[in-house]
């Protein structure tokens, strides 16, 4: 197979492929099609043969499967070495990583070892041209990311070095339909990992079951400081229950202890794009909007007509939550 492809680091935790990796395979297909190249996956772990085959349905042309007991759980040094060797052999033009704690631990080490660029926490990727010192670089990767605490959006390029690499935020790339029976291949490697790399040991690992499914929710009712108290927030939860919606929250509401961090929407929480987002007593800070501005419809309920949330909302209700929420629940129960 030709080189110069688009490669995705496919993250697995205990054999389960991370959502963001699937999102990236879908995006990689789109990028590869416009560049007329193939999609490759780098899949590291142990006992992954079946999972590797399953990746092909995301229109992956080549899964590079690297299996070893030392790769079963992520640790930085073995993963870095295996990835660096693979990238040197396959010479992809683009490598994408999920901006997870794993991706943001691993990506920078690989970039540092290969002396190539890495753009952090991208929210969009495009292909375009770039002029630099009188040369036009054709079809390079525009890596688009928020920085400065979300106050700016920067487009970053790294035209002179290959591969161009980026970590990409979960939830921003759209999933596309699978194609069962897609003709790709799984190429297996048996990486040799020196004992000198086995310097980290995971003594304990605790991952709470995801009880909150913000990303998959069609409707989210989110509460902020305007709730005023835990009791006030519970009213918002009631509205969510009535509408069969998931509960979201601003960071301030999480910090106040009214709701678990798993519910946080925004730059340091989850990025969501539901059919309907009801923001209750949320001012609409830049960091909160970063996680919900793409919602199809936004209803903002706020007592302050100047609250920035109204500038991105489709429906605005100026009022006190104490009155509006019960009225909302009542109206829904009467209609339904």
């Amino acid at each position, binding site marked *: 197979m030709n080189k110069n492809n688009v490669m995705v680091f496919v993250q697995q935790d205990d054999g389960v492929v991370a959502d963001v990796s699937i999102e990236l395979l879908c995006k990689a297909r789109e990028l590869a099609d416009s560049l007329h190249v193939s999609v490759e996956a780098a899949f590291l772990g142990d006992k992954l043969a079946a999972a590797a085959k399953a990746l092909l349905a995301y229109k992956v042309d080549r899964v590079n499967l690297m299996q070893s007991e030392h790769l079963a759980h992520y*640790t*930085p040094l073995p993963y870095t070495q295996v990835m660096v060797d693979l990238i040197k052999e396959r010479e992809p033009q683009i490598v994408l990583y999920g901006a*997870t*704690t*794993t991706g*943001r*631990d691993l*990506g*920078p*080490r690989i*970039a*540092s*070892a290969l*002396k*190539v*660029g*890495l753009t*952090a*926490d991208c929210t969009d990727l495009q292909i375009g041209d770039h002029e630099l010192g009188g040369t036009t670089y054709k079809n390079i990767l*525009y890596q688009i990311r*928020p*920085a*400065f*605490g*979300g*106050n*700016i959006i*920067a487009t*970053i*390029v*790294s035209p002179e070095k290959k591969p161009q690499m980026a970590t990409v935020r979960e939830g921003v790339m759209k999933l596309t339909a699978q194609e069962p029976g897609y003709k790709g291949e799984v190429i297996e490697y048996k990486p040799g990992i020196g004992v000198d790399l086995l*310097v*980290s*040991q995971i003594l*304990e*690992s*605790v*991952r709470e079951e*995801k009880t909150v499914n913000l990303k998959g929710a069609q*409707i989210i009712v989110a509460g902020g400081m305007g709730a005023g108290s835990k009791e006030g927030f519970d009213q918002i939860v009631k509205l969510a229950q009535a509408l*069969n919606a998931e509960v979201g929250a601003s960071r301030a509401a999480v910090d106040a202890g009214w709701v678990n961090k798993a519910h946080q929407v925004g730059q340091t929480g989850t990025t969501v794009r539901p*059919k*309907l987002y009801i923001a209750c007593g949320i001012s609409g800070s830049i960091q909160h909007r970063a996680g919900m501005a793409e919602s199809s*419809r936004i*209803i903002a309920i706020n007592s302050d007509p100047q609250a920035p949330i109204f*500038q*991105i*909302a489709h*429906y*605005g*209700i*100026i*009022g006190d939550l104490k*009155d*509006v929420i019960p*009225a909302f629940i009542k*109206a*829904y129960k*009467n209609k*339904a």
Partner: protein
Amino acid sequence: MGLNIVVLVKQVPDTKNVTGKAMKDDGTVNRAALPAIFNPEDLHALEAALRIKDAHPDTRVNVITMGPPAAAQVLKESLFRGADFVALITDRKFAGADTLATSYALSCAIRKIGAVDLVLCGRQAIDGDTAQVGPQTAEKLGMNQITCVSDIAELDAKKRTISARRSIEGGFELVKAKLPVLLTVTDEGFEPRPPSARRVMMYKNAVASASNDASYDECYMNASACADDDIIALWDIASIKADPEACGLAGSPTKVKKIDSVVLTAQDIRMVDASESGIAALVHELIADHTIG
């Protein structure tokens, strides 16, 4: 048994108070227009180092920053809190560095300090927001790393092992590693101590002075000798033996192509009356178009 620790700290514009002129037209940060602060998570990294020093008294806490001369302020604040040695890496040739070039320069400076047991950084700086400098520096030093650390469960200076709690999505990992290792620290633990009044008196007039001697001991000055000045070592590109081609703009593969300020996209908003009838009408409409079930 004491440890030799390096803490990497960065002076950052306070991104919570950004004005319209945050960026210059050439895409570089307009530092002059923004209040400069100690990167919040770096204060937690410094605190982690100082707590290790409290528990292991022979420990030496070295603090390094790369930046313009004004960045010496974060070194002063480190001295106020208990740092033993501080160095400002500053040179025009470092300007425009991306994370790769930044980590290269920092790794050269750490090498100059000598045999180091532990490197501590913040997880992420609030301006560049990349969280890449820590891992990239570790790779350049051939050092292991534990990122997103909120607590150190155990540090055995004799056996040279450390166990740290690392935040991951929806939970945590307890990771045991051999020294030397680089940790990136979050703001979840290690609540920073305030400056010590005694140390503020001692170091408030500290200024940076060039001491490009090759030897670390000559750069280091003890507190009594330096109560008024010269306490901040000033290192340029030559004194950390860095290759100019790998520094600054020249050593940076990533380039900023374009910067857009985030502006609120004002759109057609329909105001709904907060009365019961107004809300009932809205609910009716949402049910009618199948937005809610």
